[in-house]
């Protein structure tokens, strides 16, 4: 096993981010300035460049790192990993744009903040490239530890500390389940490589138990019911841009890794054994129903978005079921959905960041606090309406095509009833998404009117505008991204 430097080139998008993150940390201690907007700019440039490098390499042959064939390469850089890396880098980029003014306002303007975002993105990239379960685990931990720290940054706010503690404890439990599952799978098959696992026929109870435990670990990370309890408190307490980043980045990385697992590893045994499909279907149905119903009754918009993100995990799980059934279009539907979900959710949290007030507190996040904002800040109102319509899955937005592709894949995989549950869930969700628009436009403006936008900044505007642009772009011209997701799935051998 000899590695020359040029052989590391496929890892460049990730290595670049590690370099920028270390640079940020060093700059912070040696030449730190009070205003860390420069750090945000550096992070954005790094993430943009990394995204560009990932996308540029799409179409080139698969690269296996630190191994000679699929069975022993811990890192697989194929189109699937490249598209996924670009997606998580985009999520980090928008999150970094949303952050500078918020961080200053909330008193956690540290250069390390952007370093942590970069490290988290690198972890997500490794998850998408993982060729065996241990590498996947390392990526997951790299991501998680950075996100735990980000969650607790508003140290003076008990809600933030509560969120960090809850997220950390829950995450640690989930990690325990996952690792134990990996151990059992190794015990049953004597391998952790996904390619080797694919050749195993299920049947050993040890393997089934291992898969189930790994699934529980995943369910925790994507906040699928019944492992969702932490989500609302954590989403509410974390700094708003971080909440957006968590909601999209962590979820995207987990689903991407699950997709690779289903396609190139355990999924093969899933088809013969079909232990996965009942478990995944039950998770999906529960997640959609519970997530949507609980989102209905929330009074706090951040908590509502938390439950909404739970329900979106449910829709995505439908796609995973279809993928486990061997439906080829399910994978590209999941990536498409994740991309549009990334932009609409980050956009929504961007608008919330705009409206965050100096004193903060749960009161400023209630529906009532947004009364009349639509007239006071027309552009902001338009953007929020767009994101809400997209989250509800209505045209002409990316959310519509995401749901369309996902449910079509489910019907093709002969899981029509799951698609119906998904559609029912989407119908419920229209109510609470429209409620935000109603608050923005149709509520009496209290006297004196709300005085938000303490956090207004050029970066924040750019972030929200980018998100809005892509939500519309994906809704009007979905073909380019669809082609990209198809080539990603092709590289998995479909």
């Amino acid at each position, binding site marked *: *096993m*000899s*590695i020359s430097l040029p052989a590391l080139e496929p890892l460049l998008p990730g290595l670049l981010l590690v370099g920028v993150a*270390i640079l940020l*940390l*060093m700059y*912070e*201690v*040696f030449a730190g300035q009070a205003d860390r907007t420069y750090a945000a700019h550096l992070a954005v440039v790094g993430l943009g460049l990394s995204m560009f490098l990932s996308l540029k390499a799409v179409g080139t042959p698969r690269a296996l790192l630190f191994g000679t064939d699929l069975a022993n390469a811990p890192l697989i850089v194929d189109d699937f990993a490249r598209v996924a890396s670009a997606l998580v880098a985009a999520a980090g980029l928008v999150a970094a744009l949303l952050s500078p003014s918020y961080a200053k306002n909330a008193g956690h303007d540290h250069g390390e903040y952007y370093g942590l975002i970069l490290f988290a993105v690198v972890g997500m990239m490794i998850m998408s490239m993982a060729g065996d379960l241990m590498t996947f685990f390392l990526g997951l931990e790299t991501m998680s530890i950075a996100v735990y720290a980000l969650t607790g940054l508003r140290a003076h706010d008990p809600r933030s500390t509560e969120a960090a503690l809850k997220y950390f404890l829950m995450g640690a439990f989930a990690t325990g389940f996952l690792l134990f599952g990996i151990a059992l799978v190794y015990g049953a098959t004597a391998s952790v490589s996904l390619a080797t696992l694919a050749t195993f026929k299920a049947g050993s109870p040890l393997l089934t138990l291992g898969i189930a435990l790994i699934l529980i670990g995943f369910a925790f990370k994507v906040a699928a019911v019944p492992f969702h309890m932490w989500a609302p408190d954590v989403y509410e307490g974390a700094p708003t841009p971080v909440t957006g980043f968590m909601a999209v980045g962590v979820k995207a990385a987990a689903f991407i890794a699950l997709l690779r697992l289903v396609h190139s590893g355990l999924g093969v045994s899933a088809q013969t054994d079909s232990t996965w499909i009942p478990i995944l279907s039950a998770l999906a149905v529960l997640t959609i129903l519970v997530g949507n119903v609980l989102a209905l009754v929330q009074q706090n918009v951040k908590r509502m978005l938390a439950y909404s993100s739970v329900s979106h995990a449910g829709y995505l799980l439908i796609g995973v079921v279809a993928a486990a059934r061997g439906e080829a279009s399910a994978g590209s539907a999941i990536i498409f959905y994740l991309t549009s979900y990334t932009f609409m959710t980050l956009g929504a949290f961007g608008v919330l960041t705009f409206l965050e007030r100096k004193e903060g507190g749960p009161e400023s996040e209630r529906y009532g606090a947004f009364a009349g904002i639509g007239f006071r800040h027309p552009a902001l109102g338009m953007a929020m309406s767009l994101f809400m319509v997209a989250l509800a899955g209505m045209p002409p937005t990316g959310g519509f095509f995401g749901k369309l592709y996902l449910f079509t894949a489910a019907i093709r995989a002969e899981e029509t009833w799951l698609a119906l549950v998904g559609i029912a869930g989407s119908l419920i969700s229209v109510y609470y998404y429209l409620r935000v628009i109603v608050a923005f436009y149709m509520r009496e403006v209290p006297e004196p009117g709300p005085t938000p936008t303490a956090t207004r900044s050029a970066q924040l505007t750019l972030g929200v505008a980018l998100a809005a642009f892509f939500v519309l772009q994906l809704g009007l011209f979905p073909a380019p991204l669809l082609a990209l997701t198809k080539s990603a799935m092709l590289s998995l051998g479909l």
Partner: protein
Amino acid sequence: MHSYGLLLVLFGIAAGIATILYAITVTLGPRARNPTKDEPFECGNIVKQVNHRVSVKFYIVALLFILFDMETVFLYPWAVIYRDLGWTGFWAMISFVSVLMLGLVYVWKKGALDWD
């Protein structure tokens, strides 16, 4: 599955011993209660209000020690097969240790090693 059964027996014995020991102390141990025994133990001091915070300086140093100590664990297996790994192994370890060193520089400059 036979070997796992033995493991279960081990767990059973461990739980059994704990249960038996606990049962013995509960049933055989003498219990003479008096009011003084029910009071909180204060080691001879008068109970007083402590309402200032005490800074625990040691924890961060201890934490950092564990962190860097864990990283050195990787050096041992590397040193054993150093010759077989060749230059690849050398440069891999150089890059690993450099990142580690930058971490130390960060911690140092951040003031985490200052006692006061």
